[in-house]
């Protein structure tokens, strides 16, 4: 690694001359969000969103196709030995900073939860002179989790919340275990043991899918049996937004791992050339750590 830094020896840095990928990606991402915007506006206005659905489908297809091609191109260039060590370090840095940006995204939602939990509940309930809430909702007495909201007509509170030491505990065990299994898979690459790699990686994916299934079951239970919904006040809001974005990230992480599984089957990855796998594993550890935060702050301390 260090020899690329000396002035005597220099490996060329690969710069592709042109690329059609980014413009397709730009068009795809634009159509995707434009379509979603149409659908949401139609939904709220109570009109037909079929135009939005069409735009979203086209955008999603363009985006999916482009991303598939983009990663395929990068993998091919790597196999053609176009990348120097320095180039590979660019990918390592890039993934690290991408995960940092994801951390900050979750920080915004955790921050909202803490602010509500620490300040807003007290202010609604009578610390100080109760301010406006004393005038608007003088009868209201707050608690956490918030089972009664000040404005029950618009935000009907839930009957109860999800008990932490049942399904959420199971999910914690699933995800923490999957962090270990993905590490075992990484060790298998280092030992050049493909059978072990495929086994541990497959187990990791299975754990991720079971997690997602349990989470979906829990959501169904919350909506149908507990009346805990997005619209049931700030508890439901923060609960579903935090666990929902986490679930979306687990989904993305699982897709990454499935891609890595396919590549492992095709014979990709060697001990000193497996950053695609490592990037997916980093992402997986990241969603695991976020889950631990959720388990403590949303489920255990929230109930």
């Amino acid at each position: 690694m260090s020899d690329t830094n000396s002035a005597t020896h220099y490996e060329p840095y690969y710069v592709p001359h042109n690329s059609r990928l980014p413009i397709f990606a730009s068009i795809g991402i634009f159509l995707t969000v434009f379509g979603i915007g149409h659908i949401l506006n139609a939904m709220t206005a109570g009109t037909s969103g079929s135009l939005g659905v069409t735009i979203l489908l086209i955008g999603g297809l363009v985006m999916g196709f482009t991303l598939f091609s983009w990663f395929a191109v990068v993998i091919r260039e790597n196999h053609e030995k176009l990348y120097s060590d320095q180039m590979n370090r660019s990918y390592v840095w890039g993934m690290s900073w991408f995960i940092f940006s994801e951390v900050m995204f979750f920080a915004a939602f955790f921050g909202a939860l803490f602010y509500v939990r620490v300040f807003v509940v007290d202010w609604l309930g009578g610390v100080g002179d109760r301010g406006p809430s004393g005038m608007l909702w003088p009868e209201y007495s707050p608690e956490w989790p918030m089972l009664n909201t000040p404005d029950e007509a618009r935000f009907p509170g839930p009957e109860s919340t999800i008990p932490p030491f049942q399904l959420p505990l199971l999910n914690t065990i699933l995800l923490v275990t999957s962090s270990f299994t993905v590490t075992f898979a990484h060790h298998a690459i280092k030992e050049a043991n493909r059978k072990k790699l495929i086994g541990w990686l497959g187990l990791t994916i299975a754990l991720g899918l079971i997690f997602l299934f349990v989470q979906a079951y829990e959501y169904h239970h919350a909506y149908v049996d507990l009346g805990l919904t997005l619209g049931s006040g700030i508890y439901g809001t923060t609960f579903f937004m935090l666990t929902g974005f986490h679930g979306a990230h687990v989904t993305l992480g699982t897709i990454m791992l499935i891609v890595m599984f396919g590549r492992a089957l095709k014979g990709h990855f060697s001990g000193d050339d497996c950053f695609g796998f490592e990037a997916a594993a980093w992402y997986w550890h990241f969603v695991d750590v976020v889950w631990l935060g959720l388990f403590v702050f949303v489920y255990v301390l929230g109930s």
Partner: protein
Amino acid sequence: MSAVIEEHHDDHHHGPDKGIMRWVLTTNHKDIGTLYLWFSFIMFLTGGVMALVIRAELFQPGLQLVQPEFFNQMTTMHGLIMVFGAVMPAFVGLANWLVPMMIGAPDMALPRMNNFSFWILPFAFAMLLSSLLMEGGAPNFGWTFYAPLSTDYGPPSTTFFIFGVHLMGISSIMGSINVIVTILNLRAPGMTLMKMPLFVWTWLITAYLLIAVMPVLAGVVTMMLMDIHFNTAFFNAGGGGDPVLFQHVFWFFGHPEVYIMILPAFGVVSAIIPTFARKRLFGYDSMVYATASIAFLSFIVWAHHMFTVGIPIAGELYFMYATMLIAVPTGVKVFNWVATMWQGSMTFETPMLFSIAFVILFTIGGFSGLMLAIVPADFQYHDTYFVVAHFHYVLVPGSVFSIMAAVYYWLPKWTGNMYNETLGKTHFWLSFIGVNITFFPQHFTGLAGMPRRIPDYALQFADYNMISSCGAFLFGFSQLLFLFIVIRTIKGGKKATDQVWEGAHGLEWTIPSPAPYHTFSTPPKDLSEAHG
């Protein structure tokens, strides 16, 4: 499958393609820098026209030209376009052009993603601008889009505004990752961190700020989206949320954002002043530490935008004192610029004029910022034209002047031709006079109590508003001269030498003018000149 849309992967030792597709498909940092700069200039004119609509309406009291609803849309779109469409892309364009040349890198670290970062922007702004034609009109709640004004009372186009912000955020994050990775990984051998030009340093720190806070902006607009369409209660006290929560999350993004728009300007000025004072930059190390300190402080002062919203007294005191601390590293910088000029052999070419104006006028904006930091005083100044005067002083003769200084300073390197100095100086003086006539009177109307974002005003503010509007039109139309000068320089003019300015130091001045399409395909050997 992949071959369908990706068939080129030749190596990189040839020139640019012909025709429009060069610009669509390019992975070259200089091409992408040019795209960013032109996009930024188009947005600057678009947002500028909106500013002139505002100033034309405010030329006299009463309603003459536009309805209040449209006036609100103009103030909102003007702010959004200038912040996200003009200033930020201009600095990213400068980073694209200059960072690889300054650190001896062959290109940006991730060239395809670099193109993606740019081409998202035209789509995002097309979507944002199209909201002007939508039913219910464009967003009308100010560029700060406070809830519940933007959630319960915003127009339907708010949804597209939210997704536009998401796209801009994605673009900024990818662009910043590219800048950071380039600086950390692609420096020429021997270019240690403390030998980097200050522009590179300020951009490294800016990129870090962007990656840290753009996701928070994405978070807050997502909360809005959910409140609007899915009946969540983030910003609704009736459901146990809090409208003030919006302001906390927004300003946790918003305050670092204002430094995102000024730190690269510090870098530009720190490159130009030593050149025309013919001295080394005074206090290079302290400049680096001051920049880092400002970036750190930017994360812990956000609630000084919210003194009047009803936060606990302990919070008011903390945020007041923390805000005042920012004056210390900023003062270090101003002192260093002045000390660099002290006993220098100064000449006053156009970039130097813009830079000196930057130091003076940015300092005025900094001082009015200190006034606003004082809680009891802010209760009086809040949401008046004094605030408008303050942030326009740091943004227009601050950020925008530094961008113009940078264009004049590096244009000979980019095009190979010298601009016309007389025309450049004319542009400077028209801009300098126009900016001060526009914004200085707004301090007075603000202190006298004129509220911002209102299309009508009491009679006693009439004279100052008329003066301010005249200055705005002078400043606005002067920028057409800027456009003319730039185009003329691209087309021809006196040939520039490689060093261009006799006092210029740094790697970008060691390569030919115009800079070849690919520079530093192999790293430079001699870095003795590299120190800023």
